[in-house]
């Protein structure tokens, strides 16, 4: 068994208001091993970002982790005080976001924004932090690194800003990098460059990556293992080859079929019918049942558990309940 860096167990994160509780993340389990890239995929609104923000303990003010554990290097992050999190965020766990255009502060220079984290975590002087920042900029492929230090975000392109976000995230040599749709907002060619850069850095620093995306192309390119989320829950988990070759959950199959390919001649691009239910109106039985072509009677009344159908391959679907029994027998 590979060395586990992060273990998310039964995580439930809810948005609580006077009138309602929105279960945005509703019992999520997964592990990330050292040096591995785990992809978290699923349609918009299924709870990917809230899961990752829960790990950082940065969920919006009206949200709350109500259940579960987030064990990082043996310690439960849900039990940490805000002050203890200051030493973990940006130091052990770093994060980059989808919108490079708005993720940098428009009124502070690039140098200022890079060095503030370095000074905080590495206890360096301003001068040393500056050299470290320039070194990081060069590492992420920014030309004219010294000059860029004194420039402001609006003077740079989206791709450059995302490189800067990556430099910022990697500057304290984190053990885990959470990347929430890091390339979604970028042009295709820039996307490829950024993914390439993340791969390089991951090798160089031996960082684990939690990569959030809804782009299966990115998954195939980057991931070692994949967790598929649907309506606040994990519906399938497998290594990347298994998932692409033998997707087991009807939802995953649907996702696979909706990717355009050149090999098969497709008359019309497939799409899963219906829409993602919002967290305040999840169906009573299997949450995918209203959209599932293979739904059975029991799917409407009971929620399926996660069944392990092969070593490391788990599926939340009644169709595979029997297979688990066979596997166990």
């Amino acid at each position, binding site marked *: 068994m590979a060395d586990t860096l992060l273990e998310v167990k039964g995580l439930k994160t809810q948005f609580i208001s006077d009138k309602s509780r929105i279960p945005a993340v509703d019992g999520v389990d997964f592990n990330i091993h050292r040096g591995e890239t785990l992809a978290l995929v699923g349609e918009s609104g299924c709870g990917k970002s809230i899961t990752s923000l829960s790990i950082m303990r940065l969920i919006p003010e009206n949200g709350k982790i109500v259940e579960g554990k987030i064990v990082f290097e043996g310690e439960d992050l849900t039990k940490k005080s805000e002050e203890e999190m200051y030493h973990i965020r940006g130091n052990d766990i770093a994060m980059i976001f989808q919108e490079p255009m708005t993720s940098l502060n*428009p009124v*502070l220079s690039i140098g200022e924004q890079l060095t503030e984290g370095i000074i905080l975590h590495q206890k360096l002087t301003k001068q040393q932090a500056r050299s470290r920042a320039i070194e990081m900029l060069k590492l992420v492929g920014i030309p004219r690194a010294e000059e860029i230090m004194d420039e402001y975000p609006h003077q740079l392109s989206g791709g450059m800003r995302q490189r800067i976000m990556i430099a910022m995230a990697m500057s304290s040599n984190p053990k885990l990098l959470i990347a929430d749709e890091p390339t979604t907002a970028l042009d295709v060619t820039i996307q490829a460059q950024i993914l390439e850069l993340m791969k390089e850095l991951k090798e160089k620093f031996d960082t684990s990556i939690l990569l959030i995306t809804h782009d299966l192309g990115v998954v195939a390119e980057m991931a070692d293992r994949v967790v598929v989320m649907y309506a606040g829950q994990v519906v399938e988990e497998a290594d990347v080859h298994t998932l692409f070759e033998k997707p087991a959950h009807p939802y995953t199959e649907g996702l696979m079929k909706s990717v355009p390919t050149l090999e098969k001649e497709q008359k019309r691009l497939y799409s899963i019918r219906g829409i993602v239910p919002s967290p305040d109106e999840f169906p009573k039985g299997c949450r995918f049942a209203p959209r599932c072509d293979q739904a059975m009677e029991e799917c409407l009344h009971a929620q399926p558990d996660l069944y392990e159908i092969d070593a490391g391959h788990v599926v939340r679907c009644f169709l595979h309940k029997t297979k688990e029994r066979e596997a166990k027998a």
Partner: protein
Amino acid sequence: MGKYILRRLLGMIPVLFIISVLLFSLVQAVPGDAFTQQLNPHVDHKYIEEMREKFGLDKSPIEQYFIWLKNFMQGEFGISFKNKLPVSELISDRVGNTVFLAVITLIITYLLAIPIGIYSANRPYTLMDNTITTFSFIGLSLPTFFGALLAIYIFSFNLEWFPSSGTMTAGAGYTGFRLLLDKLHHVILPATTLAVLSVASYTRYIRSSVLEAKRQDYVRTAYAKGLPRKVVMRKHVLRNALMPLITFFGLDLGSLFAGAVLTETVFTWPGLGRLIFESTVNRDYPVMMACYMIIAISILLGNLIADILYSKADPRVRYD
């Protein structure tokens, strides 16, 4: 930058010209003139005609305007009809008082509004925030003169904490630090009365601006770096949220000289505001024109200063 400032300054000339024409027309549009009121049986009719001639009121309005303009551009503001003193002398007597009152008002405003606004934004929709909101709306809807009278009634007549009029204790002959204290003692009440109104609107503005800034992606980035809450607030939230105040500050600078007509009148504060009031009542148009032009110029300059400061604070704004 130098070029930009020069361009802006030159651009003010036509604006001021148009303003002066409008003001002059308004002053002229009021029927009668400064001497109409002095028409009483005991005053010799001939004398009034003489005075009109002496002050140029017998000429056509257009002629009068150009005479005024020529003098004004030479820094010659004319003689007051009312007390026959040079306008520049009248103004320079008053301007110090008005600026003193305005500066103290500004200081009180910022000292109260910024912390209250930030406090509210950090606890939105709590009991305290809602209380502040309620008081803000009361403050906003309270007419200035009513607030001024109320303040005098409570703090001067009943509690006797502050004097109700004047800028210093007459005949006390204070000097130095003692004089400053005496002046502050006199200015507190009118300044606070004036500040209440702007504190209310500034508080509302700062609250929503801070709330807005807290939601920005770059604030989340700052937290993700591990920066402590205080640092994130100071360096990322407040810096962005309070930047628009620079524009307000420019407007406030502009109105430093405008004086507060009602407040100065109620508190018998000898400032430009009262001078404007008196000269308007007396149709003393050299004084009126000079006061209004000073206000117009200072508002335009205040705007320019705000724009310059803004471009220093926000790297996205550059003038050259």
